[in-house]
């Protein structure tokens, strides 16, 4: 798979249209890597001139900030901003709502001002510009429910882009009882991904999976690598792996278009 880096681009004296911010999950997590690859396939299919930072990318600091370590966050932020500004990056796209939120909202004050897109917004733009078409026959009629990531939904009020893409797949989109601004967290945000949950009577991801299962879905669509992990674990916990799959919207589009 051809994934050019900013360093390579610079060596050739080129400036890509957009920087793909992969994020730590998208780079290292086995499940999330598939989302990164699916998204790159889409970028290639739409002839998008993009690049990644590769080994020059580092954690945005989101998890550190939400864990309360503002020091570590700002050190990460300032290092990343130095790299991004060094490459004169203007436009960033990412599959991770946490990176999206941090780059878009928290970096500007520290000197990093970019146009930041969640991949669902970016793909939506590609479609409206006529650069990409989604095949609506492959997944036609499948029952799909969408889990809103907190850091895309409530945090930044992006509710329609993912839904628009899902509808274009020709599937049957059903909403959970808690959706959009009232959606329930997957349980991973605020650095919870990296620690055991506090004592309680249930795990948050199990409760959210129950919300999803109530809609009798064949596919649970996600737009965040952490939500994807949490929902996948929830489905395993409920022993529904044979009936329900958890897929990122980028994966669904790549699948629909046979990429």
């Amino acid at each position, binding site marked *: 798979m051809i994934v050019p880096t900013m360093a390579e681009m610079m060596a050739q004296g080129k400036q890509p249209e957009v920087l793909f911010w992969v994020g730590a999950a998208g780079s290292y997590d086995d499940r999330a890597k598939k989302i990164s690859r699916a998204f790159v396939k889409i970028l290639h299919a739409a002839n998008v001139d993009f690049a990644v930072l590769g080994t020059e990318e580092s*954690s945005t600091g989101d998890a550190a900030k939400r864990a309360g370590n503002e*020091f570590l966050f700002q050190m990460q932020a300032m290092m990343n901003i130095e790299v991004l500004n060094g490459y004169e990056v203007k436009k960033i796209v990412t599959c991770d709502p946490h990176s999206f939120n941090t780059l878009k909202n928290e970096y500007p004050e520290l000197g990093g001002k970019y146009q930041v897109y969640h991949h669902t917004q970016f793909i939506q733009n590609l479609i409206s510009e006529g650069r990409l078409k989604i095949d609506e026959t492959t997944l036609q009629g499948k029952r799909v429910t969408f889990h809103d990531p*907190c850091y895309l939904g409530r945090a930044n009020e992006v509710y329609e882009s993912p839904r628009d893409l899902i509808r274009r797949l020709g599937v049957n989109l059903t909403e959970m009882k808690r959706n959009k601004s009232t959606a*329930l967290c997957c349980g991973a*945000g*605020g650095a919870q991904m990296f620690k055991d949950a506090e004592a309680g009577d249930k795990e948050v991801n199990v409760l*959210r999976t129950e919300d999803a299962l109530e809609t009798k879905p064949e596919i649970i669509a996600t737009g965040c690598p952490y939500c994807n992990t949490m929902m996948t674990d929830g489905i395993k916990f409920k022993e529904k792996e044979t009936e329900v799959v958890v897929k990122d919207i980028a994966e669904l589009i790549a699948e629909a278009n046979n990429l």
Partner: protein
Amino acid sequence: MQYLPNILFAIALIAGIGFFAMNIRKLTRNIKLGKDINRTDNKSERWKNMIKIALGQSKMVRRPFSGFLHIIVYVGFIIINIEVLEIIIDGIFGTHRIFQGFLGDSFYGFLIGTFEVLAALVFIAVILFWTRRNVANIKRFLSREMKGWPKNDGNFILYFEMVLMSLFLVMNATDLAFQQAGVGNPISQFIAPLFDGFSPETLHTIERTAWWIHILGILVFLNYLYYSKHLHILLAFPNTFFANLKPKGQFNNLASVTNEVKLMMDPDADPYATPETGEEEVVPEKFGASEVTDLNWVQLLNAYTCTECGRCTSSCPANLTGKKLSPRKIMMDTRDRLEEVGRNIDANGGTFKDDGKQLLNDYISPEELWACTSCNACVEECPVNIDPLSIIMDMRRYLVMEESAAPQELNMMMTNIENNGAPWQYNQQDRLNWANEE
């Protein structure tokens, strides 16, 4: 002697309002114990929010049943104030139903008729509220933090409103002249027959008694506000005005940290440099919050505005799965501690004397703070735009940056970010491997 009632009335009015004003001064003093934060930008959007959310109740109706009942009580409260104005004028000048002559029978009848209908509706709504609170087993009214005073406070308010509404209707029903005029008594005309056979003198006594208890009740209620969650009827307005306008996911970047980080990253900076002469050694600012005075004044205003409805808690994923965190409790604790600090200041002649307590640990435990997923459900849900998440985050910052007291797994995550640029222990050189797999 003829003016005695007028004088007594004036004294009651001045005492009631004076005591209230004194408490409001205490309240603003306490809120100002918080750190400064600028929330005066974007005035037009702020006014719009206030009108929509506080005046227009737009977030209340997300839960239609309680939202609808709340609107009845709210509209009743606002409109009946016109009646209170008449009572006050009558009380001071010894007149009787001064607006009746002033506005003419038909318009006055229309006004009072509307009040009577509203009073009856409020009475019904309040009974339904009471039933929800005490009989219907609604989970958010049964939480741990709702035992004792918070439960009683909620009920007292409802009893108060029941009594005030009844008195208003009885007062009208026993006002012979008013009943005989036959205008504006759509409800009280059905109560009037209860008093059939009473002598005109007795009726007058009942009318006067109801009138007096009604207005004195209102003054007592006004002063009850300060001690009660019912303060929200006033503070909802400034609270929605000063609420955060930025995206909910955007957490503030601590300026004190920015300075330190810039210094650390500046190769020319000398960390051991002695301060220049004349320049005072600055005490480094405390990072995060462990006490109410470390919070900003908007967060403290939030605490006083909270009406303990629990919509935040009932939508909190941690709470829904049985964890200790309740965003409502965070707000109640903040208010309780702030009140305690305020009383301490009053008792010690204007300065705070260390009482060996603070908001963290004595009120809010780290376990509660670490259960938060920062999902913003509580913020989204609050009918008056309170932000419990910002307090949770500020306290986490204190735990981590001042006390290094993060859970062990988070320390590992943070070490990984520091060393490898990722929350997991992978080599940064492997960061692009995903592109060549499959």
